[in-house]
């Protein structure tokens, strides 16, 4: 024990010395070289010398890097923590004897804090280092002074931590310069303390490398820093670790390197894998982010459908095709004799009849055999689980996406900094196309003017009632339209039932197709009506688009549901008839095959609409324009704008059909994947070559939760019937993997009985007992309530904080009231001067320097701005090359090219801002 004491005392002595040294390092700095060349360099002294040397260097560098000081400070505080942690972990690396020593020391002062503890361990390390060198001839010292010491050392440590960024460099220099020393001392010299430091430094350097890109400093500077850090890490990483630990450490370092490289490569690979990024970006630059949002949504949809397709294809269709009973082995797998002749006709196949219907593409083909093939694949169970999994996965993905989008959108007080937002964020930096830029300029101007007017109106508080009235009126009209269309459908369905009862033979084409026709006509004309109504409301186009989408959505859903309700009457009628027959041999599942046909026909409709509505129109406008009496391109038909709302809704409803039908037709996701693929390419092409940008270009966020919300509703509505049929209708006896069972979900019970031990079945039965499930649901309800309450309280806390911030800024305002007043005066002056300048500008030549304006702001514009480090002297204003050179009304114009001949004269025609003179020489 006394020996330990001695050692400690010595080391603490030295550390005091170090502390003093550092305080006046100007003097001592010169001595560093002496230190390094000393024949008997005590290792602690050496390290002290290093530190001193470091400090000097740091001071030199701190001048260079003063601009980075803020970031550095942040980093330093982080690094300090890391350092401490590392020290603690470092202790584990000590060998046994050292550990014993540590313990004995610990016993002595286990009341000390953790931090001190870690530092004192360092003392131990030092002490042991001394021991190795065999130098122990020092006085004694009591525990008080020791504690004091630790404090001092702690301080010093902190200082070191602060300089962490640069220290590594210094150390490196030190090592390289004093190679003589190195060679003599070799490995033994690298004591534990040095090791710990080195380790810290290496860690710091690594951190630096990772965070360097976040600095806005010039690339050259960063590159230099990076190179130094990398060199340092490479040089000393291998030297770290000792004895037993060394190999392991080296291994770890190697693995982390490999892992990093892998991560980078993987990241590269992942970004390269995102499909159609280029196409979408191109569209984005031509049409703004609103149109691109549709394509991003489409791509997202494609991703989901790929997963669904993978599930059904891999777990249902492939096993059945490979291992199931072959075609023709049983009635359900054979085309009936009556259809045999036409079964291979193209028309039949196109309609998914004949051989297509009796294949793995459809539910009816699957056999109810419990296991198939040599793999003993449990096909019915697989089919059931895939069906449930499809629905579950879709819900999960949609909700997760919505949640993450909501996170992104959160925050931001829209109203309070309205003008600042408009100023700094209104330009869409994605625009790379001249016409879009023109439109954007125009829309920014409009929005600026609107916001000025709005502000003025707000102050008057006059016209808001009119706007409100108009909005209410518009909504009333829309409701009327919706109700009217609903009634019309109801009426038509009833009428068709009457026709059906009387026999269709007496009636013509219209009566037979009345329902379909009316529904599609309504679908065509009601959105137009909404379009006409919506200008009444005077919303921002982004909000207007949402209203429009919501209304069309309501229209479609309403129509669908009135249709279903009207049909239900009919079905009830039929059911009553069937009750008399009692034995019902219709295989109801096959009715659901209809969805496949619907999807295909829907796809065709979309393609045809694009070809006729966009492409033919564009061709017509382009070429007939040569011989027409008015300008077709700028006049009435013009080119089509991309119909965002219609396309989004089409996509969503189509997806709804997929969800509804996927259980009974495993081929549906596959078809949908093809469809989405085709429509991606077709629409990308169509939009680029036949459409023109919207007149009011607006920004849409990349993650659109509005689309998602609609998708969620559709998902819910479309899985409802599917789930209903799965759970409560008995499957037909001669069709599908569940034939012969009471309910479809009986496969689970069956599997439990046959494939699991008996106790598991019992547990499962017990778990599915209604009492348990009910209580579980209750628990979930409570959890939801609790989470809801918590989030509410968080929101309240947020609001409170906001208020506090507001109050603080208000206080600041009061304090600076005078300044504010002065600023306001200045403002007035400025306005006056502006007027003067205006007058003068209209008068003719503007000689600003002789102008009286100089008294207010002009001087500052002229010369008061200090010449900036970046060499700021403003160049002439950008001649934004957004417009074409003027030309005679020539042979028309291609879509995607600027449409308006107007604004190319902006700079010339409009009097330049007179006050801009100084900056815009």
């Amino acid at each position: 024990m006394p020996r330990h004491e001695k050692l400690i005392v010595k080391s603490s002595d030295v550390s005091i010395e170090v502390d003093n040294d550092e305080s006046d390092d100007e003097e001592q700095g010169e001595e560093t070289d002496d230190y390094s060349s000393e024949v008997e360099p005590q290792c602690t002294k050496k390290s002290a010398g290093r530190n001193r040397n470091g400090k000097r260097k740091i001071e030199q560098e701190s001048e260079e890097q003063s601009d980075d000081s803020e970031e550095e400070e942040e980093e330093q505080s982080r690094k300090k923590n890391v350092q401490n942690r590392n020290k603690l972990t470092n202790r584990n690396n000590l060998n046994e004897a050292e550990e014993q020593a540590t313990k004995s020391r610990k016993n002595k002062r286990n009341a000390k804090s953790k931090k001190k503890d870690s530092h004192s361990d360092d003392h131990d390390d030092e002490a042991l280092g001394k021991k190795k060198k065999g130098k122990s001839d020092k006085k004694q010292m009591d525990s008080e002074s020791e504690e004091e010491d630790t404090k001092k050392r702690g301080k010093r440590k902190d200082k070191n931590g602060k300089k962490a960024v640069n220290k590594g460099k210094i150390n490196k220099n030190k090592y390289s310069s004093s190679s003589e020393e190195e060679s003599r001392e070799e490995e033994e010299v690298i004591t534990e303390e040095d090791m710990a430091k080195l380790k810290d430094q290496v860690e710091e350097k690594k951190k630096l490398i990772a965070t360097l890109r976040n600095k806005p400093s010039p690339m050259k500077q960063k590159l230099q820093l990076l190179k130094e850090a990398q060199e340092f890490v490479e040089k000393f990483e291998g030297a770290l670790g000792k004895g037993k630990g060394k190999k392991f450490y080296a291994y770890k370092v190697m693995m982390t390197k490999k892992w990093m490289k892998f991560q980078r490569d993987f990241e590269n690979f992942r970004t390269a894998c995102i499909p159609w990024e280029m196409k979408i970006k191109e569209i984005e630059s031509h049409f703004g982010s609103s149109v691109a949002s549709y394509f991003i949504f489409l791509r997202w949809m494609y991703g989901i459908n790929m997963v669904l397709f993978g599930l059904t294809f891999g777990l249902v269709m492939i096993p059945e095709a490979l291992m199931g009973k072959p075609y023709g082995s049983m009635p359900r797998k054979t085309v009936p004799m009556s259809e045999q002749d036409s079964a291979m006709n193209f028309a039949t196949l196109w309609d998914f009849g004949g051989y297509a219907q009796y294949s793995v593409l459809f539910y009816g083909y699957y056999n109810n055999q419990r296991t198939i093939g040599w793999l003993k694949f449990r096909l019915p169970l697989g089919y059931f689980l895939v069906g449930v999994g499809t629905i579950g996965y879709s819900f999960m993905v949609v909700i997760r996406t919505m949640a993450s989008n909501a996170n992104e959108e959160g925050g931001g007080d829209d109203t309070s900094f309205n003008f600042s937002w408009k100023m700094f964020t209104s330009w869409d930096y994605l625009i790379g196309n001249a016409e879009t830029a023109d439109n954007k300029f125009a829309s920014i101007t409009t929005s600026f003017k609107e916001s000025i007017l709005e502000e003025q109106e707000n102050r008057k508080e006059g016209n808001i009632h009119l706007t409100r009235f108009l909005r209410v009126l518009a909504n009333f009209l829309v409701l009327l339209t919706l109700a009217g269309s609903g009634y019309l459908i109801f009426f038509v369905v009833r009428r068709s039932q009457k026709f059906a009862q009387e026999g269709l033979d007496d009636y013509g084409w219209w009566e037979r197709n009345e329902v379909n026709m009316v529904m599609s006509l309504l679908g065509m004309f009601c959105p137009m009506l909404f379009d006409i109504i919506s200008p009444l409301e005077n919303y921002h186009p982004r909000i207007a688009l949402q209203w429009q989408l919501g209304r069309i959505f309501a229209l479609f859903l309403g129509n669908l549901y009135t249709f279903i309700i009207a049909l239900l009457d009919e079905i009830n009628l039929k059911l009553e008839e069937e009750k008399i027959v009692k034995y019902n041999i219709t295989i109801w599942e096959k009715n659901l095959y209809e969805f496949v046909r619907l999807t295909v026909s829907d796809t065709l409709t979309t393609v045809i609409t694009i070809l006729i509505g966009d492409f033919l129109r564009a061709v017509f406008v382009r070429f007939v324009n040569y011989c027409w009496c008015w300008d077709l391109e700028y006049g009435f038909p013009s080119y089509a704008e991309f119909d965002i709302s219609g396309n989004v809704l089409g996509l969503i409803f189509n997806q709804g059909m997929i969800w509804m039908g996927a259980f009974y037709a495993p081929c549906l996701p596959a078809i949908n994947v093809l469809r989405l693929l085709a429509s991606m390419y077709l629409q990308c092409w169509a939009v680029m070559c036949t459409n023109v940008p919207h007149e009011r270009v607006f920004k849409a966020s990349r993650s659109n939760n509005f689309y998602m919300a609609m998708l969620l509703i559709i998902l819910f509505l479309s899985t409802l019937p599917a789930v209903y049929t799965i759970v409560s209708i008995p499957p037909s006896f001669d069709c599908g993997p569940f034939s012969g069972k009471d309910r479809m979900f009986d496969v689970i019970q069956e599997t439990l009985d046959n494939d699991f031990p008996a106790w598991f079945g019992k547990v499962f039965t017990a778990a599915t007992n209604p009492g348990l499930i009910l209580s579980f649901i209750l628990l979930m309800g409570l959890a939801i309530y609790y989470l809801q309450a918590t989030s509410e309280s968080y929101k309240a806390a947020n609001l409170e904080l906001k208020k506090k911030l507001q109050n603080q800024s208000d206080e600041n305002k009061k304090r600076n009231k005078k300044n504010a007043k002065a600023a306001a005066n200045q403002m007035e002056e400025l306005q006056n001067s502006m007027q003067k300048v205006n007058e003068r500008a209209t008068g003719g030549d503007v000689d600003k320097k002789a102008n009286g304006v100089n008294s207010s702001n002009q001087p500052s514009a002229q010369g008061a701005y200090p010449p900036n480090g970046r060499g700021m002297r403003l160049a002439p204003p950008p001649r934004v090359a957004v417009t074409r050179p003027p030309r005679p009304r020539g042979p028309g114009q291609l879509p995607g090219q600027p449409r308006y001949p107007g604004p190319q004269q902006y700079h010339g025609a409009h009097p330049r801002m007179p006050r801009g003179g100084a900056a815009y020489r």
Partner: protein
Amino acid sequence: MGQAHRSHAELPLTTEDLWDYQALTFLTTIEIQNVHQKFLQLADEVIDYKTQHITSEQVSSIPAIKVNPFKDQICKVFSRNEQGLFSFEDFLEMISTFSENASLAVKIDYAFRIYDLNGNNYIDQEDIRHIIFRLTNGSMDEADISTLTHYTYWFAKLKKSGNTKWKDYTSDQLSGLEEKIQWININKTKSNALDSMMMSILMSNRVK
């Protein structure tokens, strides 16, 4: 284009440089290579890409910022050179800053510098006037600009100092900024611009 490419192929980025640049930017290696190609294309005669400089005019000719009302300012901020010359690193830095993955802090920093048109480290009234002027392409009359400047100032609640300093913004505003400022998307155009020109050369042309 094909010929040009052949001459560029003689000056490839070394793997080490590539790693370094990737560590320093928000781009992937493929994107850095694309940027490099683009840079060489913009330069007239290429001797060594490390010493080669291109002018601001050449930079602002890339479609991504060709129509940008602040393109001269963007060039000025990123060139770090009195004559407005761009080294490859400057160019890379610009693309990286505008890239989708760039951190908000970096974007805001550069956004401030770009909007600080007269370079006095404040966004003051004059800057705001010029911003409005550029955003509307000069199609707004003087009175409206004055009013708008006035309102902007008034509502920014920053009139206390007479200057808008970016760092004065509260965290609240910054979080809103994240959502609203479309800087995040800037690079997409850039990539688009760069890529469409290199489409024929590179298999994977996704410069963000």
